[in-house]
């Protein structure tokens, strides 16, 4: 079910990217509205659906952070005591007396029988739960809380589609590069370079969203994790590709040489995407070299912290602030690719699929506009030259084809 949903959304996003009108004609109005609404829905749901955990995760999370750190706990109000405490029952059916909860619940206009999300911290000295603030009353949906990730888990809806689209862009650019070598059409070169340019943009977006996430979960903006290395290499290749393009004046020569360069770079990219992550331990979920170590059962982390890159490199900076890393539950796959259906909550699956779909549409929309823009510029270049030489400026479609 999960695979069907996410895979279907991914395929549908790419099919819809090409199918009505392709990359060279304007997209129809319904298509644009679909892109806008799904993007808005992704942002709204991705940022808006509240996160609510249970009391056990509140205990676990306060362990590394001191008593004052509140954690969102999703629970229904069972009883309200006159001494300002309240009995709450969380989703695992654990009923707990929470001190200071009654006025907070009353202020929010909620009462007995309502489901609330409260910021609750666990006082380890007195072994009691203390309510800090009200976050939500009767939410329609909630996302489960992942200890160690918490609200940062929302980044998955933005970071992962960006990283995925880098690969889509790379694939499209290589396909059109091959076509432009075979058929020697200007359009193919324009499409290849537009896809590469957009790939570079999404590369930057994926790196930025990833770096921010890495700072707050792994302690450093940049750790030379194998996937970070891969995205760095792809970025360097895009940079070199455009440097090469700008160095050649002749259009046909430029198309051929840059296409060959892109195809040649498939080999290092394949190395960094498929071989290198299996050679060294990484921090991303699903990372693990062939000789990966068993997990420490208490913390669900490798017994010794993974060190990306060379084995002689120092561990990544200071310890992560939360005292726990992203907690890769399964060493063989991340939550997305894991075969375990419980690895990703159903609501998360829906939002994640929606984000893949809407980001694909956004990508293809921008790609479509930039391809048409560069074709227009190419045409203006030719007609401008024709006007200077005194010939009537032809506006025919095939003016953009090579002679």
């Amino acid at each position, binding site marked *: 079910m999960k695979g069907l949903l996410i895979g279907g959304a991914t395929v549908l996003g790419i099919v819809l990217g090409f199918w009505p009108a392709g990359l060279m004609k304007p997209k129809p109005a319904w298509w644009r509205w679909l892109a806008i609404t799904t993007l808005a829905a992704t942002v709204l749901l991705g940022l808006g659906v509240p996160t609510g955990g249970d009391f056990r995760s509140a205990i676990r999370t306060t362990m590394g952070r001191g008593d004052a750190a509140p954690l969102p706990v999703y629970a229904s109000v069972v009883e309200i005591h006159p001494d300002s405490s309240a009995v709450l029952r969380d989703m695992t059916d654990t009923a707990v007396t929470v001190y200071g909860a009654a006025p907070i619940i009353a202020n929010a206009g909620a009462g007995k029988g309502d489901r609330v999300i409260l910021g609750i911290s666990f006082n380890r000295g007195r072994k009691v739960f203390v309510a800090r603030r009200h976050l939500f009353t009767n939410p329609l949906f909630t996302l489960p809380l992942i200890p160690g990730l918490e609200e940062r888990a929302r980044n998955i809806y933005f970071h992962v589609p960006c990283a995925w689209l880098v690969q889509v862009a790379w694939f499209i650019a290589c396909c059109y590069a091959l076509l432009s070598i075979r058929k020697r059409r200007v359009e193919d070169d324009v499409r290849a370079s537009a896809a590469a340019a957009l790939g570079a943009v999404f590369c930057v977006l994926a790196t930025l969203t990833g770096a921010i996430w890495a700072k707050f979960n792994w302690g450093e903006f940049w750790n030379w994790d194998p996937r970070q290395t891969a995205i760095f290499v792809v970025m360097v290749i895009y940079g*070199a590709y455009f440097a090469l393009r700008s160095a050649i004046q002749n259009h046909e020569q430029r198309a*051929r040489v840059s296409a060959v360069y892109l*195809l*040649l770079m498939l080999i*290092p990219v394949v190395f960094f995407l498929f071989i290198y992550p299996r*050679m060294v331990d990484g921090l991303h979920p699903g990372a693990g070299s062939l000789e990966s170590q068993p997990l420490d059962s208490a913390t669900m982390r490798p017994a010794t912290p993974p060190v990306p890159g060379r084995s002689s490199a120092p561990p990544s900076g200071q310890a992560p602030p939360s005292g726990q890393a992203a907690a890769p539950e399964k060493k063989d796959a991340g939550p997305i690719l894991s075969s375990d259906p419980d690895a990703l909550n159903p609501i998360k699956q829906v939002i994640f699929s929606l984000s893949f779909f809407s980001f694909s549409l956004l990508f293809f929309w921008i790609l479509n506009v930039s391809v048409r823009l560069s074709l227009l510029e190419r045409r203006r270049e030719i007609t401008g030259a024709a006007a200077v030489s005194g010939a009537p400026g032809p506006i025919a479609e095939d003016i953009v084809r090579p002679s």
Partner: protein
Amino acid sequence: MGNGAGQSKPVAGQIVASLLRQTLAVARKDFQSELRTRHALNSLAMFVVITVSVMAFSIGTERITSGIAAALIWVSMFFTAVTGLGRSFIGEEERGTGFLLRLTVPPGPTYAGKLLVNLALSLASNAMLGLMFIAMIRGAEVKAPGSFLVVVLLSSAGFAGAMTIIAALIARAGSKGALYPVLSFPAILPLIVLGVDLLRRSMSGIGIAAMADDLLLLGVYSIAIMLAGYLLFDLIWRE
């Protein structure tokens, strides 16, 4: 070969032999024209000497670890390759002899011949670099010379493979020399990632058998980039 087409169908062995002959002819031509002036050889050798001297003077009497020595050797190897290996095709374009080469030899043997020359150049410069490092820099000791040699050999092959095809690209881009390191860096990076660690391990005394997997990977990558270069060379060499 073109003149064989009119006669009876050439046997596969004959075709291979003629391709091999053409490859060697291209390589011999490059060697001979090089030996006439010794321009590239001299400048490459001087580059190696200067690079190692700069390193030696910068490090001074400090004793460096084998990890840092391996990293420094790799930095020097990269820039030596960028300096020296581009000559093969850029020289052809500068002298205007590329046109003649295109007329007389098919693309495959041209590429293979240039690859051979670059292989020899990169092997010679990397070997010289390694020896000078060991001689001039304190701490750059090689405890397992056999595996050190194999690593240098395989990395030189990878350098030659990546640099030859990129030199051909640069030659088509109007000999923009500054582009050479930029374009070749992504193709060299897998070599660096694998090679620095291998070199460090060989310097700290680990034998060939203990790092056979990574050596194999280094070799496979070198062959893959050579083959990709061979397949793609046709497309940029033709007018």
